[in-house]
């Protein structure tokens, strides 16, 4: 009697069975999906990949005019363009990643109903392709920053800059964790979609994208800092502009909450990835 089997399909998927080894075997596919996203997105556009630059530039200009000039919101003495860009880049990265992952099952049901591969590849590929875009935008920020650093006396960097990859990793992990949880839910409840897009817009204004944390009244400040994006964006600015001390405590809290969210997301996703296909 044969007892050794390469693989096994069971009715109940186990909790915490993430099977990361299998994920590694599909790295070529991941790679290919990222490529597909990047190529297909800019087919038949006039400006092509140039849009990656144009989006944050246009957004920054709009924010500068509306929130800076018209509403007169403080930028903590940082040159407005440099003040808005980190918020715009981090926010766009977060919301693009979230939007790219939270419809995983809805948008790929045709593919998922025909072939097996670890479903996690799809949300991961969305994260990766948005990371590429984000890095390109970061290049834009860096060149502007260097310009100000060399020709003016308006910006002061410090060593926390080295933590930048960590901040961005946190952002990615946050959107992936949330996106995985939401993807399982949107598969079943499509009306969540409308509520989510609305909430996402509100959430932007709950994060220090167009204003500095310093204008938040003291009594709300603690709640405000509980938003994982707040320490990320604020620390980003702290690192490049030395606006104040780095808020270690809030960063650690964010690290903790994002880790918890990502773990929950991965677990739920892996647990439900097959069953979800019956209800999409």
């Amino acid at each position, binding site marked *: 009697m044969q007892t050794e089997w390469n693989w096994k399909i069971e*009715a109940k998927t186990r909790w915490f069975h993430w099977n990361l080894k299998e994920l590694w075997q599909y790295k070529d596919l991941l790679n290919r999906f990222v490529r597909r996203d990047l190529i297909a997105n800019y087919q038949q556009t006039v400006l092509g990949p140039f849009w990656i630059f144009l989006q944050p530039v246009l957004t920054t200009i709009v924010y500068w005019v509306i929130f800076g000039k018209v509403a007169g919101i403080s930028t903590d003495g940082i040159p407005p363009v440099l003040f808005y860009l980190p918020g715009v880049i981090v926010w766009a990265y977060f919301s693009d990643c979230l939007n790219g992952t939270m419809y995983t099952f809805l948008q790929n049901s045709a593919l998922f109903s025909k072939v097996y*591969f670890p479903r996690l590849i799809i949300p991961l590929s969305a994260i990766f392709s948005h990371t590429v875009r984000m890095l390109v935008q970061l290049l834009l920020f860096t060149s502007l920053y260097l310009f100000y650093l060399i020709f003016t006396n308006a910006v002061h960097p410090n060593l926390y800059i080295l933590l930048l990859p960590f901040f961005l990793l946190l952002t990615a992990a946050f959107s992936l964790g949330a996106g995985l949880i939401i993807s399982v839910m949107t598969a079943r409840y499509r009306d969540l979609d409308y509520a989510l897009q609305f909430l996402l817009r509100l959430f932007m204004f709950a994060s220090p994208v167009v204003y500095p944390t310093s204008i938040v009244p003291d009594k709300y400040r603690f709640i405000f800092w509980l938003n994982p994006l707040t320490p990320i964006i604020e620390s980003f600015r702290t690192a490049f502009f030395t606006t104040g001390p780095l808020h270690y405590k809030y960063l650690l809290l964010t690290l903790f909450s994002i880790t918890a969210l990502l773990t929950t997301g991965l677990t739920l996703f892996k647990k439900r990835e097959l069953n979800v*296909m019956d209800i999409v």
Partner: protein
Amino acid sequence: MTRIMIKAENVSKYYNLGKLGSGRLREDFKDWWVRSVLKNGNNHNGTETRSHIWALKDVSFEVSEGEVLGFIGNNGAGKSTLLRILSRITAPSYGTVMGNGRVASLLEVGTGFHAELTGRENIYLNGHILGMKKKEIASRFDEILDFSGVEKFIDTPVKRYSTGMYMRLAFAVAAHMEPDILIVDEVLAVGDAEFQRKCIGKMKEVSSQKGKTVLFVSHNLQALQNLCQRVIVIHQGQIVDEGEPEAVIGSYLKKEKNISCFQEYDDMSSAPGNDSIRIKRVELIPEYVNGQQVIDIRTPVTIHFEFWYLEATSGNLIVGVHLYNFRGDFIFDVCSEGAIYPSGLIEGKCSIPGNFLNDDSYYISIVFVKDTTNRLYYFEGCLSFDVEDYRKNTAWFGKWQGFVRPAFPVTLTTK
């Protein structure tokens, strides 16, 4: 003992029906509220209680290395659900499947093709989706290109391809993957005859020369009979028959095609047919003698049919009767003499004498042809019947050979 590649044990799958899981949060919440909080499981404002259908129930089987196993069954019998479970697209509700080796399933050609990408990009994309590694695709790239015959357009986005080119490219990728276990579902249903021939040829090659295990669902019974070493019949989610293809397919067909020896339609609009022909009645009438109950080799049978002829234009109408046995052999083709008929109800009959057919299972198709070549309608498998054996004065009880069994006298005389 040969290696077992797949072992399925009591695989079952049910789907929920009714209002539960309506896909709307409010409905689901209401349902949950009614069931769990109010403890009122039955009826609340017409909310249906949970009911489900079994798509598969306690299906167990084994497949050994190099075996080609076919699945047949009606639409909705559960074949596709089974393949989906084996391909890990959906999870079973109960039961387990264990296996060895790499599985590739081909439930569709061109899965994941992206219209905006070029043929080259799509070969890689599709290959990876099907589970191939980059190296494997690169090493077979030329072969794939050759097989597909779209070399000239390989750097053109596939949205500019014709359907035929698209299909050829998609199948070329699929044909060049080399898994240990290949799962194929109805891929052959699409595409033209040439394409199907190519598919079957490739599958035969994969199984016989390379010793791969193949699981295959098709409605093309001829293909199944040709390719498979073993066939499983699934009916309403359960395995009802299993074994050597010829026997299993024969008995399956007999059950499936056994529509009756009588069909009648009063309403012309719902009757089988088309704008030219509508069937009113077909009937098989045996002429029993001496209290016979069943048709045996001595029984003459007459096929009666009535149809509405709706094609008013002139032209010679010919009605042909085709007789097949259930292994698919064409026994005979007889037809009426061509003549011009007015539109309206037409009756016809065809008599098959006794002592002519061998004992077997048969089905009849009726073909309506105009002007020799223009086929108006083909009423396929409309009647079916069994001819039982009957023997007298013989010591031989094995299968009597031959398609027909006429009582031509064979006489011997001593000289």
